[in-house]
């Protein structure tokens, strides 16, 4: 009798262990990638196409980030750049990208980690001790996902494209102003820099 009870306790604990592991392992979907011209705002210069899409719908933010980023003071902006030229490579350096209100000077977007830190500071409410491990795990998963989806510096060889998110600070409790995004792209091995400007 005691042995049967012990066995059922072990089975239950194992099932709970596996179930909790599966919950953590659930993946967050990637944002769909299309041609730059298919996004809300796009432009083209010297064989380069760029498209940007601010992801502001709370439902979309929940789907792709498992978080409401507007409430944390960020708008995720999906960026796609494609080198459509038949020859010549371009260098995309994330640290050179600047943003600002459409009618003022430009700043540098926040990195994924800074956005994630802001999220971490606000994402863990005071809850009962049994709920804490799952809440912590989810916050870490959300931060990790923000970082993985962030656009990174790369070389655009002919025909190659890049995509990812920039996290741009916006007011938490007020409608945002129009954003001016400036993306400088340098021709590989040369001093020539193209500047792509977008307002959205």
């Amino acid at each position, binding site marked *: 009798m005691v042995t049967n009870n012990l066995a059922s306790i*072990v089975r239950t604990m194992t099932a709970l*262990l596996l179930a*909790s*592991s599966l919950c953590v392992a659930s993946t967050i979907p990637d944002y769909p990638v299309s041609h730059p011209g298919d996004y809300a705002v796009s432009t083209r210069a010297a064989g380069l196409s760029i498209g940007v899409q601010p992801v502001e719908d709370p439902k979309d933010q929940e789907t792709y980030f498992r978080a409401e980023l507007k409430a944390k003071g960020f708008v995720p902006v999906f960026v796609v750049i494609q080198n459509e030229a038949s020859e010549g490579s371009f260098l995309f350096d994330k640290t050179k990208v600047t943003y600002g209100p459409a009618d003022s000077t430009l700043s540098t977007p926040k990195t994924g980690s800074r956005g994630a830190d802001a999220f971490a500071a606000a994402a863990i409410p005071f809850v009962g001790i049994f709920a804490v491990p799952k809440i*912590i795990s989810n916050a*870490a998963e959300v931060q*990790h996902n923000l970082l*993985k989806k962030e656009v990174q510096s790369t070389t655009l060889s002919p025909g190659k494209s890049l995509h990812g998110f920039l996290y741009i600070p916006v007011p938490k409790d007020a409608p945002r102003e129009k954003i001016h995004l400036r993306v400088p792209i340098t021709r590989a091995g040369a001093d020539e820099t193209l500047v792509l400007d977008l307002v959205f």
Partner: protein
Amino acid sequence: MLPRRYPFCFFVVLIATLLISEALVTADAQTVPPPDTKLALKAALVVTPEFCATKFTKGSWATVKETFEVGKIACAELEPALQKVFSSLTSVTVAPSSGNAPSTDAQVVLTPRFVDVGAGVGVTAFSNREMDVFLEWTVKDASGKTVWIETVQGSSKHHMGNVFTHSKNLKLIVSDSVRDAAQQSAIKMSSAVELRSLTP
């Protein structure tokens, strides 16, 4: 007799399963080696003391606070990984472009920089968690012009560990992720058309 042994057998099977899964996860961190054809270029790898000391601290008092010491491991792993890519590779601790750097006959200068790291947090000690390291490369030619820029992602998975094994598991996941980033760097450089075009 048999029912009394049942819980013991169950634990043996459970532990065996966990050990096998850990072995599979470790095997997953291994990557494909770069192609055999070396680039006929003399390369200088810039590993400054600051780069070798790079560490990231994540989490807060409310979560799990962890320090990821990525620089120390990178400085041990990058040179052997990249020696398979270039016909000649020398490590330097000062960037050749800086004023107090010794003269070098390198045709390309490889400068790494850690962008960020991200890691999930497992709910239990046996939960697998994933870590990603983002390592950015800037490659300049002999004239000092940037010819290639790329961000590589090194990943690995390990168990979270308990209060006794967490420190050991943290070192394992960091070293495997950085080792993977070194391998991915070799693969990306080896296949970069921009670097191949510099070879005589």
